[in-house]
């Protein structure tokens, strides 16, 4: 018995860490389990009986798959927009000293240090006052706005840790500036750009607060659909989508790491 307690004491930190991990993962497991539920009422909160109905008919609920496709479209466009604009800003901040540099840094930092609801309400107020109708465009504008800063931080960190001598070496070997950029700079910065893009996609796809304040009656994104459903009755298919997203995310990260490891091994 005393050996048991010694063991517990020696592994206390790890045990606490694993408990924390359980706390993090538990809701995902519940979402997974309840995607196989056949609920009694409209709400899928209590276990009734096992069924694969939702998995065989994921789009069986009115409007859900439309909202999913709208979310994907917004997320892809917002990712492209934020990544292009953010990468440019990141290169300027990492590579040049210029007047207004610290003001720009502050401007990039502020949206990340602001509660979402404040940005959401203020942008919504602007659109209202300018009589710009809420819809796809306003959602896209808002998403690019709040994803931009995250791309800048991700890319900037990467560019600043790059060895500038590699580009000088390319130029010494008579590469033109364009060739240097395309063959040396861009491949070196790629992991940072990819991280920023991935983060934008996740943030945009999952965004609810800013979208709720800046979307129109016909543009219902997937999180907005879930929100509405949480008040009227939640179809099991929502859990199917949630689980599929989780699996896809794990698959992508594992695949990405595996690719990265292989690259390192061959390099």
């Amino acid at each position, binding site marked *: 018995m005393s050996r048991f307690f010694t063991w517990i004491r020696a592994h206390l930190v790890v045990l606490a*860490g694993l408990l924390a991990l359980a706390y*993090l993962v538990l809701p995902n497991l519940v979402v997974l389990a309840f995607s196989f539920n056949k609920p009694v009422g409209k709400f899928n909160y209590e276990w009734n009986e096992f069924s694969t109905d939702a998995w065989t008919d994921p789009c069986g609920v009115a409007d859900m798959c439309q909202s999913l496709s709208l979310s994907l479209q917004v997320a892809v466009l917002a990712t492209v927009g934020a990544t292009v604009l953010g990468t440019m800003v990141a290169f300027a901040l990492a590579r040049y*000293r210029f007047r207004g540099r610290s003001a720009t840094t502050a401007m990039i930092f502020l949206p990340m*240090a602001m509660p979402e609801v404040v940005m959401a309400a203020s942008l919504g107020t*602007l659109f209202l006052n300018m009589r710009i109708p809420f819809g796809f465009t306003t959602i896209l504008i808002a998403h690019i706005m709040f994803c931009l800063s995250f791309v800048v931080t991700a890319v900037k960190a990467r560019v600043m840790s790059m060895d500038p001598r590699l580009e000088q070496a390319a130029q010494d070997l008579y590469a033109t500036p364009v060739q240097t950029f395309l063959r040396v700079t861009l491949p070196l910065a790629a992991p940072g750009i990819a991280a920023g893009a991935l983060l934008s996609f996740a943030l945009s796809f999952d965004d609810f607060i800013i979208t709720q304040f800046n979307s129109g009656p016909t543009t219902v994104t997937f999180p907005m659909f879930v929100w509405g459903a949480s008040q009227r009755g939640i179809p099991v298919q929502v859990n199917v989508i949630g689980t599929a997203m989780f699996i896809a995310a794990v698959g992508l990260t594992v695949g990405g790491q595996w690719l990265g490891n292989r690259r390192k091994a061959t390099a």
Partner: protein
Amino acid sequence: MSTLTEAAPPQAIPPDSGQPAGSAPRTRRKLTPYWLLLPGVAWLVVFFAVPMLYQGSTSLQTGSLEDGFRVTWHLATYWDALVEYKWHFVRSFGYAATATLLCLAIGYPLAYTIAFKASKRWRSVLLILVIAPFFTSFLIRTLAWKTILSDGGPVVGLLNTLHVLDVTSAIGLTSGDRVLATPLAVVCGLTYNFLPFMILPLYTSLERIDPRLHEAAGDLYARPFTTFRKVTFPISLPGVVAGTLLTFIPASGDYINAQLLGSPSEQMVGNGIQKQFLNVLDYPTAAALSFILMALILGMVTVYMRKAGTEELV
């Protein structure tokens, strides 16, 4: 988000490469950063900074949707909003602070385990498990807590057997045999939702610590806890500061957990802003509320960062 703490190594910005350049290319080079900045910064100015100012002016307007709003310097809006929503503010900051402390208490052991106790292979598995929930709709995950904490469910049953609910009821965190629709449920949801924002900065700052420092402390007869208190924790302080900010700021503006897991008496400022903006259509009040929220948060963050003494966040 982890990038917030990834302080870039101090590195000289490469000087203009020593190519012979006439005056025309040189001015072009000088302008290059501005061309690179222009689209991104313009986007932020038009869709972030200008709306903030606009909101300031909206909060001073009076009128109605039919007759239009005009700036009348009606400062009473602020006073009325504060009076009406004072408990919302108290709850927002109270819940957010509690959730932040819980995140630190729960997140630190996990970040520590990943950084020091896990083998290289396990380390990436654990990191994936921390990040992956990020990619699942957080609304769905928050709704899952409704199942986990449901009345008569295993969690509530266990807490009842251990008499935890008696204690939490006594201090007003829960009421009776319920966890759902109480402050405890909202704090639990907030803690859960923002935990990765705490773990990732903690991990990045812990991961940089040379394990030999621990050995050195041990060689100098420091007990494990002393090593932690005198070596590990001080070095990880930037991660703690970044993590607490990344948790506290979004948590204090959140209204989803209060809406989905709480009852009307757990509503936070975010719920007030949302209601005024989307249902009541009282834009001046919504603007005043978000202005007060923003000012309070900025004030607290500034004081906190002064105290913590780390300003290298970006």
